[in-house]
């Protein structure tokens, strides 16, 4: 008989259900840790889940008090309900693997169960899955199948992390669970293909259709076509579909992870990744449509900038010249008060542009320099310009370097993309080369420039 070991997902890691035993109905049901006299905090809630009139276990399985022993603590919440109901279900049919028994399959569960046995979604699925890596490694090594049971609304989150090939079962009610454990094979929403197999059953079954008379040519053509189809299918199943989905949903982090994994996982997977990137590169915008300009505002006659400026005082304006590397280098002699950085679309551009300045706070004490990062978007079809104002400290010690970053895409820049770009640039501000390479792989046109401000020799030393 198939024995199933049940794991209740928690944010600290999955907790194995070691045993369930009946107790005197006069006592309250309890969840204990590892067989010891150590009742877990969820015991009162578990008793409510068991005992009538609030509970469902007594109603469905006929006994009013149980003791459950689990291997690891479960501290709070109600997401253990699905797992414990499943354990009771399996216990009743003699299929629950207690800790001393060998299990032929594992079940990982998280969800709330109401009195009508509907299953409701819970929070923290990502963390629960991420903290299950030890279990997943063990399962992979042993080759034991593991199925993830979750409420329907939690399935997408799970699949994002586990991949399409993991066995993730969405259940809307306990009857779905029962059907899985005790019913027929073919079920809706079940994806049972294992990671790495790469061959879709449905595709392998499709394939033929040529007459016998022109056997060699037909077979050859069939083989060629079949090979092409199989290759395409292989590419598709090597992750291409996943990559596309991530891209469409703008899940860039997952996309980045999936592309990296694909390159290491298998040959077809890496081909799939390369094809994907190539397809995107075809749509990369060309350069030259975006002009960047730096203008300094200075005190007249080289005088020292003041902390406040009278409105009738006119600052002199100077357009700064780039050096051969395409960057700007300025000397602060105390008279530079403000830098205006301008971005201008010189022609009608059918895509979207995101521009940002990563400011170097350096040794400045002037709080007005914050925030550290400024960003704006120029929409699809725009010919607009954008300006940023940077205050320049009068007493520069070590050189200050601001970084300008522009990201152009053939589509518009959505809010989600903006958020991700900002986060990525800030996290990698010390070395932007990897994220830039990734963006370029995705078909974005990325350009960076630097504005450095150094102390001029003529500036009197203010501090040692």
């Amino acid at each position, binding site marked *: 008989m198939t024995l199933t070991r049940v794991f209740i997902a928690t944010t600290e890691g999955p907790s194995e259900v070691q045993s369930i035993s009946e107790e005197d109905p006069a006592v309250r049901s309890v969840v204990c840790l590892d067989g010891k006299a150590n009742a877990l905090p969820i015991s009162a809630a578990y008793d409510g889940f068991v005992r009538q009139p609030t509970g469902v276990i007594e109603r469905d399985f006929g006994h009013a008090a149980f003791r459950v022993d689990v291997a690891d603590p479960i501290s709070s919440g109600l997401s253990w309900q699905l797992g414990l109901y499943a354990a009771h279900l399996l216990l009743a049919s003699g299929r629950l693997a207690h800790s001393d028994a060998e299990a032929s399959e594992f079940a990982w569960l998280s969800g709330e169960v109401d009195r009508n046995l509907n299953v409701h979604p819970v929070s923290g699925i990502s963390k629960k899955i991420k903290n299950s890596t030890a279990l997943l490694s063990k399962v992979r090594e042993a080759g034991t199948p593991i199925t993830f049971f979750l409420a329907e609304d939690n399935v997408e989150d799970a699949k994002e992390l586990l991949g399409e090939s993991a066995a993730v079962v969405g259940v809307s009610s306990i009857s779905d669970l029962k059907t899985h454990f005790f019913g027929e094979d073919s079920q809706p929403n079940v994806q049972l293909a294992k990671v790495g197999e790469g061959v879709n059953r449905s595709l392998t079954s499709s394939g033929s259709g040529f007459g016998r008379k022109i056997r060699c040519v037909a077979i050859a053509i069939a083989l060629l076509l079949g090979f092409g189809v199989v290759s395409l299918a292989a590419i598709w199943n090597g992750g291409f579909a996943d990559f596309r989905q991530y891209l469409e949903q703008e899940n860039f982090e997952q996309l980045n992870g999936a592309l990296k994994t694909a390159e290491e996982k298998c040959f077809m997977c890496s081909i799939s990744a390369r094809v994907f990137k190539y397809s995107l590169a075809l749509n990369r915008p060309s350069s030259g449509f975006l002009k960047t300009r730096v203008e300094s505002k200075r005190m007249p006659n080289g005088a020292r900038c003041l*902390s*406040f400026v*009278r409105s009738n005082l006119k600052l002199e304006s100077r357009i700064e010249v780039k050096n051969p590397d395409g960057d700007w280098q300025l000397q602060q002699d105390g008279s530079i008060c403000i830098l205006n950085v301008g971005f201008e679309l010189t022609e009608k551009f059918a895509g979207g542009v995101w521009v940002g300045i990563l400011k170097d706070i350096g040794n400045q*004490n002037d709080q007005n320099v914050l925030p550290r990062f400024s960003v704006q978007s120029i929409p699809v079809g725009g010919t607009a310009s954008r300006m940023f104002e940077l205050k320049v400290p009068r007493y520069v010690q070590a050189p200050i370097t601001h970084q300008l970053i522009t990201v152009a895409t053939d589509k518009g820049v959505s809010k989600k993309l903006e958020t991700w770009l900002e986060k990525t640039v800030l996290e990698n501000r010390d070395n932007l080369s990897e994220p830039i390479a990734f963006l370029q792989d995705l078909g974005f046109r990325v350009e960076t420039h630097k504005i450095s401000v150094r102390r001029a020799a003529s500036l009197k030393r203010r*501090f040692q």
Partner: protein
Amino acid sequence: MSEVQKPGVFGGVMEGTNLEKQILQSGVSPELSAALEMVRDAGWEGEPKYSSTVCHELTKTIAGRTYGPVMLELCHLLRVAQGCGGRDGYIGFFWGVDIARPSAFRSLINGHSEAVEFEIQTSTVELMYADGKFSISFARMPFLAAILEFLISFLGYEEVDEVAFSLLDGQLSVSHTSDVANQFSRVTYEALKPHLPTAQTQRKYHAITEFLSSNSEFGSALEELGDEFVLQFWIYASGDDGGGDFKTFESAFRTVVNFCLALEDAHVVEGVQYAKTIGYDRDAGQIDPGIIEDALEGAEENFQLLDGLDDPPQGRVKYLNKKERDRLLWVVEYGQAPMRFPRSVLRTEVFGAAQAKLIHSLRYELSQTEMQEQIQACVEEDYQRVLEEFRLLSFHITKVCHASFFVLVRARRPQAIQVALDLMPNIDLTGLSENLNMDSEQVGNVVSIQGGAVSDHFFSFLWDGAEASSDLANFLQEAERSFKSISRKGFGNSEIDLADIQDGHESGVQTMTLISRRLDDFRSQVDHMFSGEEELAEAFQSDKMVFLDQFSQMYEGNS
């Protein structure tokens, strides 16, 4: 009242028995000591529940033995507490706060503002009775809480609760509350009487008054009791007839200081009269009036400056280590004493340490010859060295004050302006005033990025080298250097932007400024006493002879 507990049972408080002996010798009973320690140790997560100021006020109250007024306040507060303490009544009120601050008690009381028996004002709670009113300020509540904690620790909860019950169950009136307060006061007085070191204190008092009565040289001018009196009293009192109370010069000095202060308290003499002729002729024994004024200013109020450095928020910054505090004790914590008895302070610093060594060596049963050698070698410092240490301490204190100034400027705390003026009263701020005038005269034309506040202008003025005077520029530069050169808690680069460290500096620099003034006043006083190093050295040699002679009489016979 429960039986007096046997001495020596401390529940794990001590390492060894030295402290026990010390306590017994001081006359403080173990039970009293234990109860005070419980108040001292009350706290939450390492932070004491009661500040050092409150603890010292507690000891003064206990020592004063007039508990009536305090008990009256406490009884009225008990009424408020009973209504605001929730399920546990007044216990829930007083022990429902982790740290005894006025604001904590205010929060508890504010939560019950619908009570009819009292009204919450800005800084007080007003209790309304049919026969009158009573007012308790929030600022007093931490002290009253400490009193109650002490009483429960010393008398027991049972005893205190009986009194509280008779209060809360009785008539809601001023007169009934007064009656209960008097009863409470009597119970406390009777309970404390056998535990206070009264006999020892009386011995000390008799010793000093007998010396005065029998010694016409000193007894004729109480206002002029000075260093010579201290020395002669010690020599007299430390002899065989003097008992064990004045073996150390320091104990004799402390007794004389307390006696002189008691004379002032009882208005036998007035404090101002201690000053010699106000004038400026040092040779004629006249004293710089500036020094006297500074010394009199706040002399009584800020007695616990050093202990106060541990109270939050300044406790988060380590201004002084233990060695520095010990060195500063006599100069900072004894009010006018250092100004009035400067040579005694020097004698305590030098010969007090020497005597401590000799006392320590008594346990080794040395022979007479060995003891003689010990006596001859016990003095390791001289007055010049002590003054040099004071000079270095003064320099250190200035440095930490400058460092605090730097922190406050960086944090743009308005307090920085006052600190700058305190530390550099003659600083040139003309540039600042020009900027301020520009702002105020041309209001319509000014586009101010920082805003119009004076402090904002000050900070911009500070950072803007071209406009600032060289004085201020140099001062800030020095302040930054000072900060970077100190590697103590509260002076780290990683801490400078933390709000609680900034709070610590804001509060601490005020205390350190006061300490600095007292130290500088003392040093000036000593400078006036001695015309130069030679005179100082002569004074030291003369004193050394006296002390070594006295040590020989005291200790050679004991070996």
